[in-house]
């Protein structure tokens, strides 16, 4: 396997423009002769399907949900970045590029990230034109806020529901194309294999989740936009259905899988409540703009809180350890996600956690300072220059409610605690996966004709993702990159003609899928799919989680292999294959997670450094900060599939060249 990133020559700022000028085109009259399959309808998939449909290609789009509007992009809360410099605070395309590269711990491709920054402004224009109701200032202009890891206000938002509004915007464009007959939508369908003919991606095998029927769909190109694989941990902020199956099948067919160990742990999630927990809920990172993070300074206070003998509001100001402000005075509570997550873990590991469960994992996110300062500001603005404490707090709470009301409400529903009166409790949780299918500059995988977009690919975030950059990448890929690069590929396909699904390759792929389904349904096992998924998740969280070490990773590789063996021997899947069967759906997905999980541990084991979402205990400085090894580890780790036992997978390296910026240590102090 040879990895060719196909990064164009020339100065960074002109690469994409020059490249676009020379890409091949498909004439409008030829486009209806060409079929494209898009798998997944989140921000990347919906925007890609809509754009390609509008260009005149025949598009078939697939999602496992009951409607494309439910893709998990909808749950993103905080916002989307764009280098508009509307706030006149010194933002520019270069700065957005630089922050993203630095935030990604210098493990992303310069050229891809610069392209992302370049098109970011267009995304906002496009979405506003589509009727996305972003937050506005009183003058009618768009409002911005800031996010972790940056010092400018470049984040556009719609209350705490930005992902929802952007996805519904993309869904509206997709709906328009469906209405016009240019896109055919397959709801409640799951892709279960990629079909290759003569080495090129030529179609998929999909299962109609309602009837169970296996369907063959052919196309001249296949776009995978199926999201991330965080659910390998069982507990994560991903939707319950989020899975790796589409990307993993592509990988099994020969596409390299890159940097699987790069998993973002989000610092502001609601802590685990107990053994029946099915998933974790994120509290928007934007809360860190107004909340201060702390734990008690004294261990005995932390113990008293956990025992219910002391309330957080009873801890005096001088007895609180605002550890982020203490350790990182320049960025304070707005340090990047990986830094904030590790700092929380460090405090809890040391015994200062405040959550009363068996893990004690939890820290405070406290709004009382902000309530006081904003309350005073509002009072003054109203002409009241001598407000009472009571008035200040009332006005401050109103200010908070306007800004974060829905998040506060959500928190209270889940925890039964009122965050206006007592600090929120938060703890890091698995959120976003930076690794994924390896793609070149065209977003094409190592299989010709198979493109991968959004969270499903590996390309733009490096080892860590800054807040509000995932939505940006999803839409950039779908609206503004794939339409060009997919067309370039298809320019050579205008004479191919309709691809028949009668070919032996389709028959074989369908038979393989059918066999694996039958194997599960006929297995004489005793344990549920979730039993194995939870077991896998525990190993992943404890040994391939927020901090990893050689010993733990080696154990994890062994243990996951064992769980996989037990799974195939002892799983029980009720029901039949010709009906809606959620247990069967889960079994097929967990089978893939069991292979991927092991590969993640393999990838983490070979990466002898700490960077971004990957923290190895062995590589840290005296203050507990990450130690990167730029000399030896500045590469993309891309794995080649060699069978279900992923310890046999072969590692290929794509060297990362930093031509335009100087690699430096990430310092947020």
């Amino acid at each position: 396997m040879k990895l060719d990133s196909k990064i164009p020559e020339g100065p960074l700022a002109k690469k994409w423009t020059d490249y676009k000028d020379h890409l091949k085109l498909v004439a409008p009259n030829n486009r209806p002769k060409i079929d494209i399959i898009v798998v997944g309808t989140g921000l990347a998939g919906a925007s890609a399907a809509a754009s390609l449909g509008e260009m005149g290609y025949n598009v078939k789009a697939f999602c496992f949900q009951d409607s494309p509007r439910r893709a998990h992009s909808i749950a993103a809360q905080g916002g989307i970045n764009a280098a508009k410099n509307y706030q006149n605070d010194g933002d520019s395309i270069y700065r957005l590029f630089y922050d993203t590269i630095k935030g990604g711990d210098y493990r992303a491709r310069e050229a891809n990230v610069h392209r992302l920054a370049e098109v970011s402004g267009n995304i906002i224009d496009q979405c506003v034109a589509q009727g996305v109701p972003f937050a506005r200032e009183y003058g009618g202009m768009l409002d911005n806020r800031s996010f972790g890891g940056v010092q400018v206000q470049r984040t556009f938002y719609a209350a705490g529901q930005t992902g929802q509004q952007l996805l519904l915007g993309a869904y509206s464009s997709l709906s328009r194309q469906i209405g016009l007959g240019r896109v055919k939508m397959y709801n409640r369908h799951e892709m279960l294999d990629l079909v290759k003919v003569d080495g090129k991606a030529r179609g998929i095998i999909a299962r109609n989740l309602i009837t169970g029927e296996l369907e063959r769909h052919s196309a001249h190109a296949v776009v995978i936009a199926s999201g991330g694989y965080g659910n390998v941990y069982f507990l994560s902020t991903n939707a319950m259905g989020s899975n790796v199956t589409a990307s993993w099948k592509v990988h099994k067919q020969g596409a390299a899988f890159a940097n699987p160990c790069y998993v973002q742990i989000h610092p502001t999630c609601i802590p685990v409540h107990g053994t029946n927990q099915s998933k974790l809920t994120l509290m928007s990172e934007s809360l860190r703009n107004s909340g201060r993070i702390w734990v008690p300074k004294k261990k005995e206070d932390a113990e008293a809180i956990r025992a219910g003998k002391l309330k957080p509001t009873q801890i005096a100001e001088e007895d609180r350890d605002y550890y982020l402000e203490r350790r990182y005075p320049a960025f304070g509570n707005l340090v990047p996600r990986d830094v904030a997550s590790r700092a929380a873990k460090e405090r809890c590991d040391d015994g200062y956690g405040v959550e009363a469960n068996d893990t004690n994992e939890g820290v405070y996110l406290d709004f009382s300072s902000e309530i006081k300062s904003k309350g005073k500001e509002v009072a003054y603005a109203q002409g009241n220059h001598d407000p009472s404490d009571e008035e200040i707090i009332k006005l401050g709470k109103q200010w908070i409610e306007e800004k974060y009301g829905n998040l506060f409400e959500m928190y209270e529903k889940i925890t039964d605690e009122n965050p206006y009166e007592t600090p929120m409790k938060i703890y890091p949780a698995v959120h976003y996966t930076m690794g994924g299918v390896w793609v070149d500059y065209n977003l094409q995988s190592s299989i010709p004709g198979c493109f991968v977009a959004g969270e499903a690919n590996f390309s733009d975030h490096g080892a860590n993702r800054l807040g509000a950059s995932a939505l940006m990448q999803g839409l950039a890929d779908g609206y503004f990159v794939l339409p060009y690069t997919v067309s370039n590929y298809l320019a050579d396909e205008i004479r191919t003609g309709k691809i028949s699904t009668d070919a032996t390759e389709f028959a074989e792929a369908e038979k393989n899928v059918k066999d694996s389904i039958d194997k599960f349904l006929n297995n004489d096992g005793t344990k549920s799919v979730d039993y194995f998924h939870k077991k896998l998740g525990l190993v992943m969280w404890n040994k391939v989680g927020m901090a990893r070490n050689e010993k733990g990773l080696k154990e994890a590789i062994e243990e996951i292999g064992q769980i996989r063996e037990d799974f195939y021997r002892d799983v029980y899947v009720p029901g039949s294959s010709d009906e809606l069967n959620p247990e069967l759906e889960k079994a097929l997905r967990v089978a893939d997670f069991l292979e991927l999980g092991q590969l993640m541990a393999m990838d983490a084991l070979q990466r002898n450094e700490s960077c971004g979402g990957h923290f190895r205990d062995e590589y840290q400085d005296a203050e507990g900060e990450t130690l990167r090894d730029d000399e030896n580890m500045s590469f993309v780790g891309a794995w080649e599939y060699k069978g279900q036992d992923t310890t046999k997978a072969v590692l290929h390296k794509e060297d990362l060249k930093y031509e335009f910026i100087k690699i430096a240590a990430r310092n947020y102090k």
Partner: protein
Amino acid sequence: MSSAKNINITLKIWRQKNANAKGGIETYKLDNVSTASSFLEMLDQLNEQLVNERKEPVAFDHDCREGICGMCSLYINGRSHGPETGTTTCQLHMRKFKDGDTIYIEPWRSKAFPVIKDLVVDRTSFDRIQQAGGFVSVNTSGNTIDANSIPVPKDDADKAFMAAACIGCGACVASCKNGSAMLFVGAKVSQYALLPQGKVEATQRVLNMVRQMDEEGFGNCTNTGACEIECPKGISLENIARMNREYLKASII
């Protein structure tokens, strides 16, 4: 959560093999449900129990479990998304129930939402309504004007957002004695009617969406207001009024 305790409950659940089969209520006992669990986690627990007894688990729709995707549904004790107002089923917690409670769980009940299996219904009619006109016909080229070149009054933007916050779960339809989809359609029509970007096609949009809504077999609105009360996202009846105004205006022009 330190205040969590375990309760025992009885569940009366609608089981239906498929769209054509006759359905009926089945009774299940479930012990040791933590009050910190969500309603769907309670159903997970039931399904785990059923799988261990080698019985077929109950099919129900769910996905994000953060109250935003709109995939979860369920008629719980005769109410859409259960007893708590402003809450999706996934955000309803078992602390709202008592030890020994009997809970009735049924699928959305509406002709336009046929049952697929057990508690899962087909809501693609909503998609078809949106495909009939719930969009702004702008090309996805990025070659649009700068986003700040058309100022939008904050009040309008906020109102449009409040309408756009609809999650398309269908609780409005399920709660309505007429099976009307007017809160959903009204929210979509309102979002675009309030923004300058959506104005150009306002006439065609409302006519097309309403036509599709009728074709899908949804009933009419008789201003009972159950939809607004049961809407987990607080979508206001105002949107129905605005849709009616838009529709009337479009019909006259």
